């Protein structure tokens, strides 16, 4: 078709501008710590600062815990729903959507309200606070994890594969470990990357639980040291995009593999 209306292209172009103009501006700004010069000085300052290293490491570890908890919570549940309770899928989807729209601010208040009082009093210890932070992050990660695992399970016809394995003599443990998990590897990794990217930059929950995380550090830096904070923004974005890029790559590989089974 040679007749292509202009309108959609204009929209795509505007979208591009909208996304990349700020980015280019930010990048440019971050390179101008020294007057009239393009320099990586701001990046050096950021990367070598102890607070950067500490908060990043802290958020990194929290992200790993979040991924582990979310995976263990989501995978067997979604598998079971697919296999035996397909009519409950809308409800499970509803629950995971909740956390997408419940504002982080409300989530954190709810958490603090309950878990900072006896009998739990989690906020009185470091570990308790970290635990609460991870729980909050798990809520935020649920939609992404759920969607990944759900899409992964839909691609492989869980029910028939499970029945095929059963008729060959396999019990539940074998089915989960040898048949289901290996085929979800890509979906789980992709969910993990999204979760990681999200946790690394999260601001609200970490601030209100007063944890030494990377998000609050970034915000703080932004108010005091503009060039370094901009450099940090760029670093953080690059990290995020690397995560998503990985995810897309994995996704494409999986599609190729799965297309053939149809």
């Amino acid at each position, binding site marked *: 078709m040679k007749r292509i209306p202009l309108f959609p292209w204009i929209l795509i172009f505007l979208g591009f501008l909208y996304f990349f103009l700020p980015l280019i501006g930010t990048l440019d700004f971050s390179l101008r710590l020294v007057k009239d010069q393009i320099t990586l000085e701001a990046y050096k300052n950021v990367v070598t600062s102890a607070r950067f290293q500490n908060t990043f490491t802290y958020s990194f570890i929290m992200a790993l815990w979040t991924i582990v908890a979310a995976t263990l919570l989501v995978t067997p549940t979604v598998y079971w729903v697919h296999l035996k309770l397909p009519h409950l899928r809308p409800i499970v989807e509803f629950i995971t959507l909740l956390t997408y729209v419940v504002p982080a601010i409300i989530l954190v208040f709810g958490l603090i309200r309950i878990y900072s009082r006896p009998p739990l009093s989690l906020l009185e210890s470091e570990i308790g606070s970290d635990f609460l932070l991870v729980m909050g992050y798990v809520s935020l990660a649920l939609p992404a994890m759920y969607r990944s695992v759900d899409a992964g399970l839909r691609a492989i016809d869980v029910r028939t594969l499970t*029945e095929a*394995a059963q008729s060959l003599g396999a019990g539940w443990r074998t089915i989960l470990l040898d048949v289901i998990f290996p085929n979800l590897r890509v979906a789980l990794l992709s969910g993990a990357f999204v979760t990681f990217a999200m946790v690394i930059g999260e601001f609200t929950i970490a601030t209100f639980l007063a944890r030494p995380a990377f998000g609050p550090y970034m915000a703080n830096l932004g108010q005091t040291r503009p060039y370094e904070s901009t450099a940090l923004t760029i670093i953080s974005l690059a990290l995020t995009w690397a995560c998503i890029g990985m995810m897309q790559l994995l996704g494409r590989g999986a599609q190729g593999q799965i297309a*053939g*089974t149809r």
Partner: protein
Amino acid sequence: MAFLELTNISKVFGQTPAVQDFNLQVEKGEFVSFLGPSGCGKTTTLRMIAGFELPTTGTVVVNGNDVTNKPPQKRNTGMVFQAYALFPNMNVAENIGFGLKIARKPKDEIKKRVEEVLAIIKMESFGNRYPYQLSGGQQQRVALARALAIQPQVLLLDEPLSALDAKIRVSLRQEIRAIQQKLGITTVYVTHDQEEALSLSDRVVVMNNSKIEQVGTPFEIYNFPKTEFTAQFVGTLNSIPATVRHAANGELTVDSQTLVTAQKLAGIADGEAVMISIRPERISFASEGRKPNVLNIKVENITFLGSIVRVQVRAGEHLFLMDTFNNPFLKLPEVGDKVEITFSKEAVLVLRHASQI
């Protein structure tokens, strides 16, 4: 005692009966098909043999053991699904060896057995391929091999050919039958395709509305259907209103022309209105040789189907079909021609009520 015995099986989902009063005995080495329209309960019955569904009432006995309440993984049945259901993360050899690995067979025994089954499906060189590298037909052959590898007591196939193209369907069908006969494995096959059921099976179980309509050899099912449903579902059938002229010697009239049936018309009065059934392929043009019955008809329509030419004819106000093999050097009548058609006495089946043949 038969090898596979299904006794008084019924299955109710919620309020809906899916299978009712199902009784069947399958001998060792027999190939039995369940044939019927979708929703007739054929797949549910198969799934009860496999153990994926528990019957509401009744028992499943395999080789003398009651397996009614055993979980599927303890039944040693081989199952082939419409959707192939190969494990995408394993290659062909691993797929085929999966059941043996679970049974903790030694590695070299598994390897030997996998090679044996690969030879049976003629895919010796495909052991290292992954499912997504195979065509649909190849995947289904691997699924068959995987089911055979565990040397199951019963092989169950659930519409295994429905997802494949017409040409591959026919060739794989022949292959399945050949392998089954070679190994002598007791097999239950579910299909909605009458040609598949007829061409593959030792016996066919025709099902409708959660019940068995008829059990018999393909020849019996096609030529001597016991119910109206079987007659209509299997093959094409002409049903023509007729009047009994002389019950004693089987004379009937259609469009005031006289026909004779070989069937005993005991209990039917002269002058009574009945229905007669004739298969299209039993009718031929009288110019090619006369049989006992000759009817004057008008040719209404001619459809060329390839090997068969289907002719719609009219006798009085009754339209019906006849099939004749295509022969490019034989001149067929043309639409509008008035010609004679002929068929044997045996081809005419008389039905008294709509529900009885």
